[in-house]
Structures are given as structure tokens and as C-alpha cells.
């Protein structure tokens, strides 16, 4: 995280001191937020409301609870399946859109339109189609995740440097070879950015589908526990979701640096 307000000329001299004050500031702010939360809840809210000490106390009990572990497994497995479907379909459609003007013009409005629609709106429809089953959740996840993959892959495939393709063509490269050896690797970073977005949205899709259809999973765990006024336990579920969101971000960021070292755009944005 580059800090632009620090004048460059001064930076090297004060760097050692600065890092520690920044970390200190972060820790102090975090503690202040937690303390304020704790005190406000203690002073004004009923006893069942989640507070930091309560949540921390609830963690060991919840994460050893087999029901919670099963719920986590179910939700994550559904997300993995949904993402796999989205990746396969999304890459195919995205590459087609990026490389063919005709496909792009005919599909673009649908893709952008569906992407603008709040994904939560399909819940009544998928519950009509699939009933209150895990199929409804899977469909919601795919709907939530696929469009960001399509859009990003298409962007990537569109921005392949023209020279690469021209050289390949003058060596009489086959179209399929060009797709696999040039277009796909060069749109990979875009795809990863799309995947990053899609993973977060898939998780949200799974949670809202579980809220709506009351099928088992982390979302339902949160819903159920907050209904029976076990907010601390329910909040552990929220923490788990946040942890998975952040974890996936880190994983994608790390693999971009590790496997695509030539791709440096991330340093600027993150």
C-alpha cells in the first residue's frame, strides 16, 4: 500500500520510524473499534447481541461443532462447483466475445444487462425452478459469478497485443494454436481479476440462497443462530465468510505474483 502523501524526498530517512507508527496506528484503531463495540453493546443492547468478547468465547465451541463444520463444507463445496461451472462456461463465452466482433456485438448487451441486475432478484425464480433444494443454491452461485468472469475474460482476449497475433499468423499458426498459446495466456491476468470478483460474489450468492431457501450451509447457520438469539455464535459464521473472502483474495494475488511474474498491474492497484 503505497502512501502517496508521504513526500518521496523524506521517505528514506523516516522509513524505519514510519512503518512502526503506521502499524501502531492500525493496532490502536482496531482496539478502539473493538472496545467501542464492546462498550456500546454492554451499555445499550440486550445481552444476546454479539460483542467481541462473546464472539471470541464462542469461537472454540463453534468451530468444533460438527454441524458447523458440515455447514461450512456444504457451502464451500457448492461455491467450488458453481465457480467451476462459471469458469468453464465463462471462459468459453468470454474468449468468443473477445475474439469475434459478431459474438461480442450480439451478446454484449445481455451480459452487461445481466451483470447490472441485482443477483438477489433471481432467488424467487430459481426457487420456482429448482424448488427449495441445493440446485437453487448452485444456480444462484453460477448466476452471481459467471458474468464477471465473462466480462473480464472478454476484456483480456480483446487486449491481446496485435503484433503477437500477426507474427503467429505469418508463421502460419493454426487458429486453435493461437487461441491456446497466445490469447489464453495473455488474457490470464484479466481472467484472474474476474475470478477474484466472482469468488466473492459466489460466496454472497450461496449465503443469500441459503437465507432464502433455508437449505443447510453457513448462511443458514447464521440465520438460524441469530433467530434463536445466539448472536455470538452466528457472528463466528460471518467471520468465517469474511476469512474465506480475504483468503481467496490473498490466494489469487499470490498466484498472480508467483505464476505470472511479468504481470505487474496489481502492484499499482492494491
Amino acid at each position, binding site marked *: 500500500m503505497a502512501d502517496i502523501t508521504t513526500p518521496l524526498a523524506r521517505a528514506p530517512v523516516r522509513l524505519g520510524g514510519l512503518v512502526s507508527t503506521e502499524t501502531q496506528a492500525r493496532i490502536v484503531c482496531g482496539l478502539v473499534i473493538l472496545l467501542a463495540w464492546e462498550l456500546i453493546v454492554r451499555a445499550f443492547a440486550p445481552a444476546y447481541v454479539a460483542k467481541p468478547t462473546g464472539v471470541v468465547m464462542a469461537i472454540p465451541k463453534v468451530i468444533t461443532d460438527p454441524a458447523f463444520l458440515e455447514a461450512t463444507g456444504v457451502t464451500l463445496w457448492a461455491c467450488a462447483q458453481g465457480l467451476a461451472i462459471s469458469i468453464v462456461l465463462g471462459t468459453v463465452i468470454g474468449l468468443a466475445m473477445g475474439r469475434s466482433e459478431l459474438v461480442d456485438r*450480439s451478446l454484449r448487451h445481455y451480459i452487461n444487462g*445481466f451483470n447490472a441486475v441485482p443477483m438477489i432478484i433471481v432467488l424467487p425464480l430459481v426457487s420456482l425452478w429448482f424448488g427449495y433444494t441445493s440446485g437453487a443454491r448452485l444456480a444462484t452461485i453460477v448466476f452471481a459469478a459467471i458474468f464477471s468472469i465473462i466480462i473480464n475474460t472478454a476484456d483480456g482476449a480483446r487486449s491481446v497485443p496485435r503484433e503477437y497475433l500477426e507474427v503467429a499468423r505469418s508463421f502460419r499458426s493454426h487458429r486453435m494454436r493461437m487461441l491456446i498459446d497466445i490469447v489464453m495466456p495473455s488474457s490470464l491476468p484479466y481472467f484472474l481479476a474476474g475470478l477474484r470478483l466472482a469468488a466473492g460474489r459466489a460466496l454472497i450468492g450461496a449465503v443469500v440462497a441459503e437465507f432464502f431457501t433455508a437449505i443447510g450451509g453457513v448462511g443458514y447457520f447464521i440465520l438460524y443462530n441469530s433467530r434463536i438469539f445466539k448472536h455470538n455464535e452466528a457472528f463466528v*459464521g460471518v467471520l468465517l465468510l469474511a476469512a474465506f473472502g480475504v483468503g481467496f483474495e490473498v490466494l489469487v494475488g499470490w498466484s498472480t505474483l508467483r505464476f505470472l511474474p511479468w504481470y505487474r498491474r496489481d502492484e499499482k492497484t492494491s
Partner: protein
Amino acid sequence: MLDSLRKNAPVWLSLLAGAVLWEIAGRNSNPAFLVPLSETLVRLWQLMGSPQFATQALDSATLFVTGVGLGIVVGMPLGLLLARVRIIRVGIDPYIMTLYATPMVALIPFILSLMGFGFAPKVLVVFLFSVFPVLYNTVEGARSIKPELIEVARSYRSSERALWREVMIPYTLPYTMTGVRQAIARGLVGMVAAEFFLSATGLGQLIMNASQNFDTSGVFAMILLIGVIGVALMRLGLYIEQRFARWRI
């Protein structure tokens, strides 16, 4: 004219093809699963003509505008304030980023059991969905103010007020507007989520009713309507963002 027609022809053709495909598929499948476009449009017309539609739509609009409005009114000044005091900004930045990335839907059950079914909890949901994009982007913008700008203002002995009015606000406004665009999109999700999961009112209630009565054409009609609203709001957001983007240095 003819040129633009030729250029846009694939677009119109694809929209037409989609409509025809929908119609044919709808006519040849179980009406509980898929209804043709024509029937959906007729149903939409019926729904929009019903006396309760106006009140429901107004309900949703009030919720959306109040929530997103609060999000902007709170997010922007708070963002600037946080950005101005450097040590607070540095300290609080990671937490804002975390909250920006946290799926707010997960908090809805808590809000439900704490605040019940009234208007206030729903506004809170829409507010929570929309405040963090504004806050996050404002802080990002303020962070990228060139230090020279502030130093020059300082050396001309600008007062704190002038510094805000002449440097901070104009510089961060385009960034804030990016946040506003995201807030509009997220606010719509928040609105529907609040209407689904808290108490059923507004457009959300119309969908829920249709779904519970197995009125598939009603569900399609409402999805089409909210889809169109979503696309329109996205356009509006992009317009607002681009209007201010011109200032960007």
C-alpha cells in the same frame, strides 16, 4: 444514419433474436417454468396498472433514496475527515477496506432480530450496502491528493476551511463519485435484500407474492422490471461518474 444503422444492426438483431428465442422457448415449455415474453409483458402491464403498484413502487423508491442518500451524506464527509487526519487514516484504512469487502447480506439476520420489521432496519441495510463504497473511494481519493497542493495552499497561509473548499473537496469529488456509482448499484441490491429478508414491502413484496402463488409470469415480469431499473441506475451512475471524471487531474 445508414452507417450507424449498419453498425448497430447486430445489436438490434441480437435483441430481436433474444426476444424471439424467449417467446418460442416460453411457448414450448411448461408455463410453471418459463412463460413467453408476450405473456410476461402483458402481466407486467397488468401489475403496473394495479392500484397497489404505485404505493409499492413509491415504498421501494423511498427506501432506496433514503438509504443511499444517507450513505453519501455520511460517507463523504467522514471520508474527508478521516483522510485529513493522517494518523487516523493510516490506522483505520485496513478496517474500512475489510468492511468494504465484507458481504453485508450476512449482517441482515442480526439487524432483523435486533430491530424487527419497521422502516428503520431496512434503511439501515441499504445504508450499510452503500456507505462503504463512498467512504472507501473518498479516502482513496484524499490519499492521492498531491502533497504539493496542500503544501502550496499552506504556504499561502490558507485557512483550514479554504483548504477543504479549494483543495480537498474538488480533488476528491471525482473519486467520491466513483463511490456513488458503486453505492447506487449496491443500494439496489440492499433494497431488494431488505425487502426479501426483513419485511416484505415494495417491489420485493410483489415478487415474493408472485413466487409464493406460483405466478411464474408475475415473477418474470418483476425480474424484467427490476432488471430494467438496474440497468437504468447503472447508466445514471456512469453518467454521474463521468461528469465529474473530467475534473480528474
